[in-house]
């Protein structure tokens, strides 16, 4: 919020802001294919969680059943609304769709502009799906349910906003907005080290976003339109001198890299994931990390020349992140920490796809974002539910769960196999694209990824072995299997992973046109 005031301050000092607005108008309409008078479906989706949160605020805190029901209803409604988008989405067009826009701060030239293209639509779907899953998984939260549900819905609002915003000022506001609910969710409902985890998380992300803000301001100051709309910022950024472009991209990389996360700025992630309550871990790993990757894709679009300069560095960071995350995940005995580090490794693959800067690699990156969203969400869901039953995350404490909890065993095994990238899962399709893109761009360096692949198989299979096999222990003999609602949530995620893996045409159709447009600029 404070940073936003900064934005305003600069805007006010520029007297020509108002005059230029007409031109930016024309600019925006060039990429807008839907008529502005239609039902503003994106706004409806975006604000649905807020309505839910407001409703919950009116309910007395003791009526937890009603509170949960409203939260569930709001998340379900959001998902259903979002799920209706692909039916009217024109996948042949790379343009922004369902576009809507109104002036927000005319003095500065910022807009309340929402729209989705093939890259952001899967992310919108993913966030709304995972929010519903997280809400279902929240039945394990018993303390201050009202506050918890409000923060959860607020988090969904922020995430959806990030993926829908078509104005950098709006994007930034939503970006920072996700921090506030997350801080409280971790700090109030987290594990024993929750205070440290939440504070670290917020400081790290804020530290990154300062650089992001400076980079955005640098672009904004040179913008001829004096508008923060993404289109105007793109033209402004590409007109910057090359040195400045590099600096600006460096700032954006830092801001988004913290969130993604990339080596060596991943320090906040393991603790935050481990300490967060499990529904929040689902969202953190499944959807929030994707915000970083998504922002990076958008900044690549903004500064193609700088990205080409940075390409070897991006590649190096990606390779290190993949191997580093994998090796550390292999060493973990804490299940949640293991999944957290494996998330780092998987997000490194997203960067690897981006760094190939060709269509196949970028397709791989966007697919991997969805694939890891589903896999990471499912893993944190299953392990979180297991933790609620056994109160241990130590892998050595588990044994023989296949006998006691066959549903858990089946779903977790399938998810871990998908995490390894076995054919038939969406991760495999994503990995294949990223690797093909990589081998076309960077040749033999791709070989190094094979270390990551083998290590990922090592920890996945060790986990399967330790969790589900072995002699029956008394402590593990009475673990309850998945309840129907939980089975539904986990089953939906696993079905998505397998279904889209066997028939990848559906997600590919959605994203191909937009990725083609993005890759054409390099």
């Amino acid at each position, binding site marked *: 919020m404070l940073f936003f005031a900064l934005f305003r301050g600069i805007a006010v000092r520029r007297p020509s802001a108002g005059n230029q607005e007409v031109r930016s108008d024309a600019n925006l309409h060039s990429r807008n294919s839907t008529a502005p008078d239609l039902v503003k479906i994106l706004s409806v989706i975006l604000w649905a969680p807020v309505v839910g949160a407001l409703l919950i605020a009116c309910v007395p805190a003791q009526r937890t059943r009603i509170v949960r029901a409203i939260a569930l209803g709001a998340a379900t409604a959001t998902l259903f609304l979002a799920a209706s988008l692909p039916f009217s989405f024109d996948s042949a067009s790379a343009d922004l769709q369902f576009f809507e826009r109104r002036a927000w701060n005319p003095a500065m030239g910022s807009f309340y502009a929402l729209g989705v293209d093939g890259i952001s639509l899967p992310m919108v779907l993913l966030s709304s799906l995972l929010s519903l899953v997280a809400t279902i998984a929240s039945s394990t939260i018993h303390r201050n349910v009202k506050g918890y549900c409000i923060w959860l819905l607020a988090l969904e609002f922020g995430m959806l906003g990030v993926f829908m915003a078509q104005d950098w000022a709006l994007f930034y506001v939503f970006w920072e907005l996700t921090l506030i609910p997350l801080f409280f969710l971790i700090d109030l409902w987290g*594990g*024993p*080290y*929750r*205070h*440290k985890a939440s*504070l*670290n998380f917020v400081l*790290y992300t804020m*530290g990154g976003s300062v650089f992001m803000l400076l980079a955005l301001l640098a672009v904004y100051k040179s913008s001829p339109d004096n508008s923060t709309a993404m289109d105007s910022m793109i033209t402004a950024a590409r007109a910057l001198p090359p040195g400045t472009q590099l600096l600006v991209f460096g700032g954006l990389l830092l801001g988004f890299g913290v969130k993604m996360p990339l080596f*060596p700025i*991943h*320090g*906040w992630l393991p*603790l935050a994931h481990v300490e967060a309550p499990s529904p929040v871990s689902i969202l953190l790993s499944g959807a929030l990390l994707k915000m970083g990757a998504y922002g990076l894709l958008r900044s690549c679009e903004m500064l193609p020349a700088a990205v080409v300069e940075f390409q070897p560095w991006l590649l190096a960071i990606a390779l290190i992140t993949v191997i580093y995350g994998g*090796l*550390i995940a292999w*060493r*973990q*005995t804490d*299940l*949640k*920490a293991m999944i957290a580090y494996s998330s780092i490794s998987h997000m490194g693959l997203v960067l690897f796809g981006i760094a190939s800067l060709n*269509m*196949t690699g970028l397709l791989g990156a966007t697919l991997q974002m969805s694939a890891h969203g589903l896999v990471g969400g499912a893993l944190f869901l299953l392990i979180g539910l297991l933790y609620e039953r056994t*109160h241990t*995350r*130590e892998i050595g*404490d588990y044994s023989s769960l*296949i006998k006691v909890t066959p*549903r858990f065993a*089946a779903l977790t095994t399938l998810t871990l*196999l998908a995490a390894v990238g076995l*054919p*038939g899962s969406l991760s495999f*399709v994503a990995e294949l*694209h990223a690797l*093909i893109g990589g*081998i*076309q761009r960077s040749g033999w360096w*791709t070989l190094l990824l*094979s*270390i990551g*692949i*083998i*290590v990922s*198989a*090592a920890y996945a*299979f*060790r986990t399967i*072995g330790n969790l*589900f*096999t*072995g*002699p029956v222990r008394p402590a593990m003999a009475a673990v309850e299997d998945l309840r129907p609602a939980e089975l539904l949530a986990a089953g939906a995620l696993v079905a998505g992973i397998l279904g889209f893996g066997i028939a*990848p*045409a559906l997600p*590919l159709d959605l994203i*191909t046109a937009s990725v*083609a447009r993005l890759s054409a600029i390099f």
Partner: protein
Amino acid sequence: MLEALAASIPLFPLSAALLIAAGMVSGRLGGEAGECYTRRLALGAAMSSAIALLIVIGLRSRAAMPPQLRLGTWIASGRHRIDCSLTLDALSLSFAMLILLLGVAVLRFSGSYMHREPGFHRYFLVMTLFIGAMLILSLGGNGLLTFAGWEIAGVCSFLLIGYTHERPVAVANASRAFLTNRVGDIGFLLGLLLAVAWIGDLEWPKLLHAARKLQPIAATGLALCFLLAAAVKSAQLPFTPWVTRAMEGPTPSSALFYGSVMIHTGAFLVLRLQPLFEHSVPAMFCLMAVGALTACYGFLTGLTQTDVKSSLIFATVAQIGLIFLACGLGWWTFATVHLFAHAVVRGFQFLSAPSLMHRVAARPMRPVPAFLAHRPGLYHAALQRFWVEAATDRWIVAPVQRMAADVERFDREVVERIVGLPVPALGSLSSAAAWEESRLAATGGSGPDAREAGGVIRWMAHQLALALHWFEEKLVLQGVGADLWKGFRRFGQRLRAIDEALCRPRYLILLVIATLLSVK
């Protein structure tokens, strides 16, 4: 119509697997009552696809069916399109027939052998899945489909090695076997990637046709990638140890996996890639060397084994070494015939191994042959299986483990310190014992988890606060007192001294000249 018929061959076992899985999850299928149903489902599916396969073979022999059948598009993205297609040539059809014949036989055998086992349904689920995967592998029309079948078959092998999941040894062996297989998978995947990069098409006929026109060095690289995959899957040197660990599974499954079908897939891949290998002399030489070495290794080691499954598996490995050798020498037809004959014979031997055990239980072991008995060094080496596994552990597994340890130490010492985590923060409270302890002692304060930042951020904030504090202390608070007046007086005296100096003529002239110069 033709498409549906051909597609139904792998789909029958796969849908049987799906049905069994659905039955197990819903709880309808289980216990002894469901055994009959599961068995009939699995057998019926395998028989149906065998009938479909026979029809396809009949149609193909009358040339009423094309050798390459396109069913649809699997992955279409940008410039690359990967079809869902089937290759129906002599090699793939006969290998599919072999899979189904042995599959039906083993399923029939298992129906009685696994009777009243606790994991009866699980076993049949994995077996039908495996048969489906193998059919995809053999009939798959492009490299990627074959790879998919290849991987799923590998997972099935993992699941069956770990079948007796109460025994930790079985599970550890399953993981080890799968990890070794993963090395081969990477070879396969890399081969496919290179094929995409250099040839641009993965359909077998086009790929093999284009492979003849590749540069020799490129062809060698491509062939070696696939050779790696084939050598791992067929347990050739230096990857042989995984297959001895794979003997943990139930005997009928060992017969199907390591006696007959799966262990031959490596040789099948080499036969499938015949034009590619023929185009590259170094690859042929490697093929020959790997085959010859493995044959000797399997022969010598097999002589010293004392249990039936181990001696059978070393004999298998040696025979497949001979198949590789034949391929390397260019005797492709001979290798093909050898493959099919060996698969049938070895499958039978594995299936009859348990009854054999009953027959020979009382008889003494046959001693090792004289040439081996008189060479203690060689005998010892053979007994130790030539230390292949120990060498792998020492030269590959241990370095990677050490690297992981180093990386983790780096994370602890550098990254986490930058974040400012107390060293034992992560994972210290994750175990059940720690949880119990913390619950008992929950009355204490927040302990080490104070609400404060750490690491670099803390240090920076601390330094900033110190500087500001100093500023506040020195100038704002103390300054208003005597210090500030003293300072001002001293400042005034200095100013007066400068003023006096400037009033002297020489400085005045200097100042005027300087002014004139600067104005100009």
